[in-house]
């Protein structure tokens, strides 16, 4: 009580300010410890040749090496292709799924629960399941394709650059779609029923109602899910690592996988940190774009002033 009274704003503006700072200090300290310090440390590391037992300042050497490397443009391109393809599929499938689940049919609760397993099952377990599916010799996909006569012999999905990449996309979409579906479903269910009834009375078809009522109404949620999903997919590591470890011959190596391979697998902490800084920069640009976009979407479709 004594302490509080001393801290309370009695002496005007100056102590009010002090009190405000005192209130946010614990949270600020916590943020510094778990966010700011590691970030600063990563940036510092990116200017060193830090590895096992050594750490000397090397200036921009890591950045020069990374940007002049032959593989790096491929990795960046692959990462963005991976992100756009996967997020696009997740959003489309999520929207279709949510619209179907919102329909008033018998046993809809059961369908809603059945959508969730890919999301609920631990990612590692799910990925091991997919490893089996993709296996050329005892995997069911290869087996079914052979029985149907589409392929002649066993096909090892994860053994070729392209097929491995698209297989990883399929798994990533499988894991990422349910959450988007559930969130979009929630948004769709929040649309007042009256709006649909009013449009129905005015003669609007199902598709017209979807286009001019559902889509605009769920747009803020859709934009948010698009960005969150983009960030997660950009940084999606464990799925690729479990399926292919970035192979074959770098065919599934995205920026995050490259960072891990450099820093952790090859003990080149400095060079790994350089990649991490790059990821932070790209995601920061993303977040700015997102804030701008969400603001615009809310202005256009929100019901506020």
């Amino acid at each position, binding site marked *: 009580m004594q302490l509080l009274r001393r801290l309370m704003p009695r002496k005007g503006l100056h102590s009010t300010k002090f009190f405000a700072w005192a209130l946010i200090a614990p949270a600020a300290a916590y943020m510094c410890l778990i966010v700011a310090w590691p970030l600063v440390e990563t940036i510092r590391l990116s200017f060193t040749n830090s590895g096992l037992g050594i750490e000397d300042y090397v200036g921009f050497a890591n950045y020069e090496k990374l940007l002049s490397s032959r593989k790096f443009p491929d990795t960046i391109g692959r990462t963005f292709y991976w992100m756009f393809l996967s997020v696009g599929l997740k959003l489309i499938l999520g929207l279709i799924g949510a619209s179907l689940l919102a329909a008033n049919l018998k046993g809809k609760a059961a369908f809603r629960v059945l959508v969730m397993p890919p999301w609920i099952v631990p990612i590692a377990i799910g990925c091991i399941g997919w490893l089996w599916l993709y296996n050329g010799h005892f995997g069911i996909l290869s087996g079914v394709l052979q029985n149907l006569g589409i392929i002649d012999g066993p096909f090892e999905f994860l053994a070729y650059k392209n097929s491995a990449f698209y297989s990883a996309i399929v798994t990533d979409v499988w894991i990422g779609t349910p959450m988007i579906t559930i969130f979009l479903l929630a948004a769709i269910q929040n649309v*007042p029923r*009256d*709006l649909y*009834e*009013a*449009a*129905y*009375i*005015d*003669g*609007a078809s199902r598709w*017209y109602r979807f286009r*001019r*009522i559902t889509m*605009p*109404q769920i*747009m803020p949620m859709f934009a948010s899910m698009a960005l969150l999903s983009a960030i997660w997919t950009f940084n999606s590591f464990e799925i690729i690592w479990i399926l292919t470890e970035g192979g074959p011959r770098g065919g599934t190596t995205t920026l995050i996988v490259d960072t891990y391979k450099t820093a952790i697998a090859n003990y080149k902490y400095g060079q790994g940190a350089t990649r991490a800084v790059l990821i932070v920069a790209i995601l920061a640009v993303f977040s700015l774009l997102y804030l701008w976009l969400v603001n615009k979407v809310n202005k*256009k*479709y*929100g*019901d*506020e*002033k």
Partner: protein
Amino acid sequence: MATVALQNISKSFDDTQVLNNINLSIEDREFIVFVGPSGCGKTTLLRIIAGLEEASEGQIIIDGEDVSSAHPVDRGISMVFQSYALYPHLSVFENIAFPLRVAKVPEAELNQRVEHAANILQLTNRLQHKPGQLSGGQRQRVAIGRSIVRNPKVFLFDEPLSNLDAALRGDMRVELASLHQDLNATMIYVTHDQVEAMTMADKIVVINGGNVEQFGTPMELYHHPETQFVAGFIGQPNMNFISSTRTASTATNCSIKADGIGALTLPVSSCVGKEGDSLCLGIRPEDLSLTSSGQGFEMQVKVLERLGGSAIAYGTINSQVSGEQSFKAVLPGDVQVSPGQHIHLQVNPDKCHLFTSQGDAMHRLKAEV
């Protein structure tokens, strides 16, 4: 423009019967109000006419054409919802234009029709705003605008004023009534507020428990309620009901002994039955007048609501059955009465209503209308 006929409409949800065999015939250009307590089925009946619900049985006939299974657009109706159901992401212009866009009306004609509607409803300088920026009354007008651009044959309103404050509701009542005169259209209006029903309707349909209790003009309902329910529902403040017993009757009158009031002889017909039958006397609070002590009957005032021009006294009268019975009376605005005081009241038997124990009214022979 349009007549509407409902023939043997019944509706049940699963096992619950919400509408029983409704028959109504609505004339062209009439303003019809469905009124009843909540849950009586009035909104369901409106939604059946709109085509949002399907009747379990019966036909809806608009302009002589059976539209029971037709799409709302083909029925030629439009509807204003209780919540207004405005599209929050669209401007006022686009909200009003929505039905025309659906119908792919050419741009020039669309502009002209929206502006015409906006003119009628004084929304011209609001067309570019979003619904969220409008006041309650303006939103209400946008919803009405959306229903008039389509030039429907029949307008349906589902409790459109219930979200407005009391003052605005009064204004909108007048606006809707004048809109009805301007548009010259058939309108069906649902409300639970008997004041709205009385003030706006050409004819009122009183619905209770899924049945039509009575269908008639406001004055018919006020002066000749067919049932005790209608008598209690129509009129503000509502009617006093006093348990009574028959003492004698002729072809043109009925003598009763009313609990706490005394002997009265009412000019009613069809008062058949025997002495000692229990009846129910109905007295409107506004038909009572003050009298000097020693005359009439006594009422103890508990609460007095002063409205300025008149005052409503709430209190009790003595009852042989239950000790005391609650009672209301409308008194002159400047009456010198305070709560707790006893007053003496008298009533003209010509103005009283009489109901059988089943709740059916006896026909009043000396009513004003």
